[in-house]
């Protein structure tokens, strides 16, 4: 189900004019603070009536100012995770979580509820009221509330910003499952390149109210010109398949014929997974390096070299596993005499593939890698 969004809105001093398509899966809205992400999400949810625009999920029109269509928020059934929680202070955590099911035709699913509560680690808080929760706890309940409302679409406005890494890596797989199993569109606002890279099917980059870049995650994230992401966000996403699990806690993937070792993944052999390899984590070498602790070496051919005015250079490699990006210093690029067409080897550590950089079913089982 594709969500097509066209929104024009003016605030005093801010002008939003965004148009993008969000295909099935997770569409990340990526942009600096104040670039209009929340405004867009609010319009999709029906909480803000934009000056003009149209939002439709296939032929289900949420609103269309040209045709005078305006579905009220409660009939849009979006699961909105607000940037600021917005829990109901007079209801217990449990009641907050169930709130969305009170108005839904579907029966609440206790198993699903249990799963979400466990994932969010809020089992001990169910009888409390939001006033007695910590910041992160509030945010987790807010996530649970939205997820349990049986929504037709999820709008997540920086849902994980207040959470610690460990908790994040417990929640991310859930979003992945939503992305892969349910076919509902998910708009996901985030500042974290790693989060976006791991989750997003599609990335929409916003700058001062305009869409500067949109497209499949692998493409957009590989483009260093996408300003809001910053240089550190550059990276490539490789589509792999699980080959086997080794006894020493590693999982071997098949990336277009090349083996790739990553920390143990809870996915059966044969399962497709996405692995993001950040450009700054890749080391290049002309000869095949020997005796390094790094386990992953992918051979390829230089496709393009881009230099900015900083000390860095972005090298894209054509490999059997797909396009790979490496950010190295200009000095190194010169020392290695890199040029398009030159064959070279990309070295990546196993563990440099961070848990949140691995997508797919389940996520890594080895929480602490040590």
């Amino acid at each position, binding site marked *: 189900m594709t969500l097509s969004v066209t929104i024009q809105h003016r605030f005093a001093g801010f002008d939003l004019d965004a148009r993008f398509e969000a295909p099935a899966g997770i569409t990340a809205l990526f942009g600096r603070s104040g670039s209009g992400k929340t405004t867009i999400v609010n319009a999709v949810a029906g909480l803000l009536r934009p000056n003009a625009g149209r939002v439709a999920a296939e032929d289900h029109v949420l609103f269309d100012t040209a045709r005078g269509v305006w579905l009220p928020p409660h009939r849009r059934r979006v699961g909105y995770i607000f940037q600021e929680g917005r829990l109901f202070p007079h209801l217990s955590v449990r009641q907050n979580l169930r709130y969305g099911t009170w108005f839904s035709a579907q029966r609440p699913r206790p198993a699903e509820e249990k799963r979400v509560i466990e994932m969010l680690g809020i089992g001990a808080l169910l009888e*409390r009221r939001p006033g007695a929760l910590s910041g992160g706890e509030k945010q987790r309940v807010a996530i649970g*509330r939205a997820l349990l409302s049986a929504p037709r679409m999820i709008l997540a406005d920086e849902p994980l910003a207040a959470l610690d890494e460990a908790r994040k890596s417990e929640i991310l797989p859930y979003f992945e499952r939503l992305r892969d199993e349910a076919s509902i569109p998910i708009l996901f606002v985030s500042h974290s390149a790693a989060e976006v890279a791991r989750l997003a099917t599609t990335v929409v980059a916003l700058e001062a109210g305009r869409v500067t870049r949109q497209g499949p995650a692998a493409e957009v994230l590989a483009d260093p010109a996408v300003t809001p992401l910053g240089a550190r966000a550059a990276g490539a996403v490789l589509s792999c398949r699980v080959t086997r699990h080794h006894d020493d806690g590693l999982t071997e993937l098949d990336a277009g014929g090349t083996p790739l070792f990553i920390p143990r993944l809870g996915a059966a052999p044969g399962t497709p997974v996405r692995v993001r390899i950040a450009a700054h984590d890749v080391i290049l070498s002309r000869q095949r390096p020997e005796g390094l602790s790094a386990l992953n070496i992918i051979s390829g051919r230089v496709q393009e070299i881009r230099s900015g005015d900083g000390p860095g250079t972005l090298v894209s490699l054509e490999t059997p596993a797909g396009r790979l990006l490496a950010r190295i210093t200009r000095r190194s690029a010169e020392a290695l005499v890199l040029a398009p067409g030159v064959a070279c080897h990309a070295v990546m550590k196993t563990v440099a593939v961070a848990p949140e950089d691995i997508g797919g079913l389940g996520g890594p089982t080895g929480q602490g890698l040590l």
Partner: protein
Amino acid sequence: MEWLGPEEWQAVRLSLRVSLWATLFGLPPALLAAYALARWRFPGKWLLNGLVHLPLILPPVVTGYLLLLTFGTRGPVGSVLQEIGVVFAFRWTGAALAAGIMAFPLLVRAMRLSLEAVDPKLEQAAATLGASRVWVFLTVTLPLILPGIIAGSVLGFAKAMGEFGATITFVSNIPGQTQTLPSAIYAFLQVPGGESAALRLVAVSVAVAMSALLLSEWLARRAQRRVAGT
């Protein structure tokens, strides 16, 4: 109790009944009016606002007189209601009507203040979770304005307990029927030597209202605590 005669007890009971009914029946329309004033925009809004405040502005005697003209057995509304068996004139129901009308502005204002303090963001959140306007109101707005409703009810109840001018003008002062505590107090004050009897009734009136007050404070604190957590 020895120190209250049967007729005086009757007045106490009647006052309680009248005030309770006035408050209970006043609540729903007051809530509606408060909601309309706080949330809606419509052409005659200023007029509604004025009407709601009218019983406060007018001397009670005038209000009572207007009630008599409207809801009396010969009044335009009263005569129609009489057809369907609803009689206000010279009944305790009339006293309740008068007290309710006098208390109305107080009910409305307290609720309106509370309504205006409700964070619309919470109501929006409820809407995104599938709650229609009515459900949002019932599940979010209403619980959040509970303190205002309680406060309004207490004010209204107290006012109803003290109401006199409109009541006596509208339904007169018939022992056992329309003689509320204030009317009884008034009657005692009209005759030589009635002061001490009046004082007794004043004491009863104050005691009843204070109990209601304490009860309401307790309820409000509970509602408050629930929202604050723990």
